[in-house]
């Protein structure tokens, strides 16, 4: 057992921490207020290799391990969770799906530009009528000669309006339910592919979220990603990695809440003493710190097993469930510690609170995580 980070892991953590401090933190409130996609920062991320973190070097990525990935996303979560979500969904969902299921030709054509950060990726499963019950998606793909024809709509798609390359899940055999779902690589310029409404969100406002519409969109036959009708199985594997990402981001948000609270509690004087001297405040801080460490340990456990090549469905779900609940609690307490100042936009804790909420919803709600964990515990026969 060894809790020590390697030299590379420490170096990556330090680099991203400094980058976030210099280039992100001071701008987060502005991008949030304007709900603007931070292209300027994204281009810098691309230059540093942060859009291909877990993709091997042979495909243009940095070839780093999941522990490093978790460390990076924690730092982004701490600085600006919108950036964390952008980096996470691009890396874990879009790029990783192509890496896990793509042919060599698909990897050269689509994974390389994603990993190099020349294009952004989006990954679309959710539909207006299929959220938690993702296997009931209604988007269809029909093979017609040398191409697939896609019809349907996707909702809440991160990078929906800014991505150059999208991975789209569609039903290829309605009679087979989740065993009739396949994945497709769809380029932005595809005729019949239209970007719909951009969502106006509670939090993560600098992350792009949009609807996608397919009206007889024609996709080359060879853009089927993975085996026909195996899309849902690949999706679950992709989400294992994604949940480690969301969990890391949640730990980062919770840490932001704690760090700001510590600072404020020492500075704010009431009844002639810093509020940090009141036991009621101390207990909040102690609980926040303890839960954050516990959450991080769950995240690093899942990342460690992932690096060992193990299946981490249960561990990733546990990390995501626990870390997102911790982030929510910590950000609520951070506002409480800041009092009225926590409720206004002059202090960033209200943003942490708004951003944290998504961690309990995206890539499977907390309810669905419990379902996944229970299923792993009980086995298939019960559920």
């Amino acid at each position, binding site marked *: 057992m060894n809790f020590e980070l390697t*030299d*590379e892991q*420490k*170096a*990556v953590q*330090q*680099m991203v921490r*400094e*980058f976030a*401090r210099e280039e992100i933190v001071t701008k987060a409130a502005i991008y949030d207020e304007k709900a603007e996609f931070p292209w300027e920062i994204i281009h810098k991320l691309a*230059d*540093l*290799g*942060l859009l*291909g*973190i877990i993709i091997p*070097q042979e495909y243009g990525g*940095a*070839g*780093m391990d999941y522990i490093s990935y978790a460390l990076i996303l924690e730092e982004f979560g701490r600085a600006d969770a919108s950036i964390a979500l952008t980096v996470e969904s691009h890396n874990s969902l879009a790029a990783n799906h192509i890496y896990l299921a793509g042919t060599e030709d698909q990897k050269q054509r689509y994974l390389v530009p994603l990993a190099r950060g020349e294009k952004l990726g989006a990954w679309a499963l959710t539909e207006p009528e299929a959220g938690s019950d993702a296997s009931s998606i209604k988007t269809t793909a029909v093979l017609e000669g040398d191409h697939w024809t896609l019809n349907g709509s996707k909702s809440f798609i991160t990078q929906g309006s800014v991505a150059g390359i999208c991975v789209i899940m569609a039903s290829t055999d309605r009679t087979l339910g989740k065993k009739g779902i396949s994945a497709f690589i769809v380029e932005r310029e595809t005729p019949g592919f239209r970007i719909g409404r951009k969502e106006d969100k509670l939090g993560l406002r600098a992350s792009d979220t949009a609807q996608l519409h397919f009206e007889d969109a024609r996709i080359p036959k060879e853009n089927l990603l993975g085996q026909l009708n195996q899309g849902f199985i690949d999706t679950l594997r992709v989400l294992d990695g994604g949940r480690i990402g969301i969990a890391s981001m949640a730990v980062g948000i919770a840490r932001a809440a704690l760090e700001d609270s510590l600072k404020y509690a020492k500075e704010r004087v009431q009844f002639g003493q810093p509020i940090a001297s009141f036991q009621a405040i101390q207990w909040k801080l102690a609980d926040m710190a303890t839960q954050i460490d516990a959450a991080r340990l769950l995240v690093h456990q899942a990342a460690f097993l992932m690096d060992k090549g193990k299946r981490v469905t249960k561990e990733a779900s546990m990390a995501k469930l626990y870390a997102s609940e911790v982030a929510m609690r910590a950000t609520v307490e951070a506002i409480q510690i800041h009092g009225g100042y926590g409720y206004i936009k002059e202090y960033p804790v209200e943003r942490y609170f708004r951003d944290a909420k998504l961690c309990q919803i995206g890539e499977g709600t907390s309810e669905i995580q419990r379902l996944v964990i229970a299923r792993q515990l009980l086995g298939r026969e019960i559920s």
Partner: protein
Amino acid sequence: MKIIVCLKQVPDTAATIKVKPDGSGVETEGITYVINPYDEFALEEALRIKERLGEGEVTVITLGPPKAKEALRTALAMGADKGVHLSDPAFEGGDSYATAKALARAIQGLPYDLILCGKQAVDDDAAQVGPAMAELLGLPQACVITKLEIDANRKKAVVHRQIEGASEIMEVSLPAVFTAQKGLNEPRYPSLKGIMGAKKKEIAEHNPSSLGLSPEEVGLAGSKVKILKLSPPPSRATGKILEGEPREQASQLVKLLREEAKII
């Protein structure tokens, strides 16, 4: 073109520094260390020169404890080619002179066309290692530079120096020692690939004997200046809020500035 960059690992400029109760040094617990910011300008300039010329080699050199290797790794991750680490308990506690002497000796054993340093290290602010090293190596020097242009034949350089109220432009024959000032460039961050590649790059280790120096010539023993004691700066007195009508406040203020602050 072979460029040598000297760098020092220092406490992060954002860290709060506490002096040890006995005044013998500063508390190191919980402090993160970084490359001295001025040395980063020097390194960035070296990397840009190499990139501009399309050839060359950047060697980074540091004198410091084993932990200082992190600074070399960061520099290698940013793009430097090789590292040299002067690491031995005998080097510890040295002043600017002892440090410059050891660095100069290590540099004498390397090929170079240009040596770049930061104008000063932000921990002790002595600003002497660069110039002292130039003297020991018998090289021309220009300190606190904000611009550096290498001549086409690579025999000389034109540098801009910040001086009081003006900028001084100098032509210097190479090889030379230049110390970097803020404004020279905007240092890059190490990329992920750079970090992954850094572990494969070579770092040469030196102790006094491998440099042909005796233990008495380095570190505290070889120093001309000894630090007797460190003490924290006096804590700032709390501010005063003047009360009353503007007219009364103004006369109180003048009185305080004259009698207490003694600045008018």
